[in-house]
């Protein structure tokens, strides 16, 4: 007997927390450089360009592309097995359970758009380097896109921080109700802080 379901589920959980968590933090870290102005962000982007192109693409494919695709496709399968019912059972954890799935649906669409447009089209096909000026023009001329991007970040941040809580439950790290609620509160605090950081660096393009 080889427990395929068990290993796929655990891998899904690990990939989400470690690989995609790292991707999210990298995004928040680099983008928050925008708060320091064009020089700071462009400097941070130039730092990444120091990595030789083939290695950079290999890292992107193996550390972002493959984990993201696996997490998304297997995640869709998981989300389809749920019948969200917070309207009947309005407990906090159940709302978080439903939000985990709703943010997932939004992220699937949002990330397809984000990756195909900014990474594959703008950076890959047209060869335009991503810069402070490019992002500022993009966001200030498309307020709707700005809102969709902020929502995308909020969704990713909630999905990740709530994922920390469920990770601790799924792996049997946090067993009792007290430690589980402490971890949940701490995760949601992290969620609030990261959302605030997002609002600040997105807002910095407009001032």
């Amino acid at each position, binding site marked *: 007997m080889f427990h395929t*379901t068990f290993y796929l589920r655990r891998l899904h959980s690990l990939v989400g927390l470690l690989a995609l968590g790292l991707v999210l933090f990298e995004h928040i870290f680099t983008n928050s450089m925008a708060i320091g102005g064009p020089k700071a962000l462009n400097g941070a982007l130039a730092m990444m360009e120091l990595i030789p192109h083939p290695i950079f693409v290999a890292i992107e494919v193996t550390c972002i592309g493959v984990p993201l695709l696996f997490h998304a496709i297997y995640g869709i399968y998981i989300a389809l*097995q*749920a019948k969200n*019912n917070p309207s009947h*059972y309005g407990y906090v*954890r*159940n709302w978080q*359970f439903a939000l985990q799935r709703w943010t997932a649906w939004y992220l699937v669409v949002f990330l397809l758009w984000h990756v195909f447009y900014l990474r594959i089209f703008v950076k890959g096909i047209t060869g335009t380097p991503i810069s402070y000026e490019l992002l500022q023009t993009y966001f200030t001329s498309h307020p709707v896109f700005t809102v969709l991007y902020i929502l995308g970040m909020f969704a990713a941040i909630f999905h990740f921080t709530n994922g920390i809580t469920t990770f601790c439950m799924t792996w049997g790290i946090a067993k009792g*109700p007290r430690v589980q609620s402490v971890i949940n509160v701490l995760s949601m605090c992290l969620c609030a802080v990261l959302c605030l950081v997002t609002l600040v660096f997105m807002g910095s393009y407009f001032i």
Partner: protein
Amino acid sequence: MAEQKKVRFVIERQDGPNDKPYTQEFDVDYRPGLNVVAALMEIQKNPVTVDGKTVAPVVWECNCLEKVCGACMMVINGKARQACCSLVDKLDQPIHLAPARTFPVIRDLLIDRSVMFESLKRIHGWVAVDGSWDSKDAPGQNPYTAQTAYEISHCMTCGCCLEACPNVGPQSDFIGPAPTVQAYLFNLHPLGKYDAPIRLNALMEKGGITSCGNSQNCVEVCPKNIKLTTYLAQLNRDVNKQALRNIFDH
């Protein structure tokens, strides 16, 4: 004499397993301490809807009438619970009754919960013994886990946790919190623990513990206050260790 106070019941009915559901409303004379089962008995005695139409009596299941057997589980005002201990005084009116549709509906509020028995078989939910004779020197319960075992043994397979769980239903193959946690009860047993690897391996299969999505509705609705999420986390720990054993012992 003051006018008799009435309690309005809105009941989701269904004539057969494959028939379309419909609702009917009934008024029942109020009396102090009235519970949902007693009200259903009144409707059975006088199955007349609020429109004055005499209809077939509402079918439901009940047995012990003291929250021990689990048979009268139904959805009352949107939540899964036992009808026998649902006091009318504590419910918002009109009172909505519906069958727990996580399970196949046989008729009206009567459901088929045999899937839970199948799940208990699947997780090896018993203690294997040598025979039916007295074993004088049988090992005693571990006093440190006896309270936990006693708590989990209260499970009456009513199905509240399965009905409330968003991951249990026709759309999913999850066996649900109740049968999953029973594996822990038998793993705690001084003789049952010898079969723990069988149970843990069964829980690692499709529809086992990995289908838990941590909504934690189960622990909120459990009428026996079993700390289901705590034991699910413990079992998660145990299956992880079992997986390591599976990988490194061979």
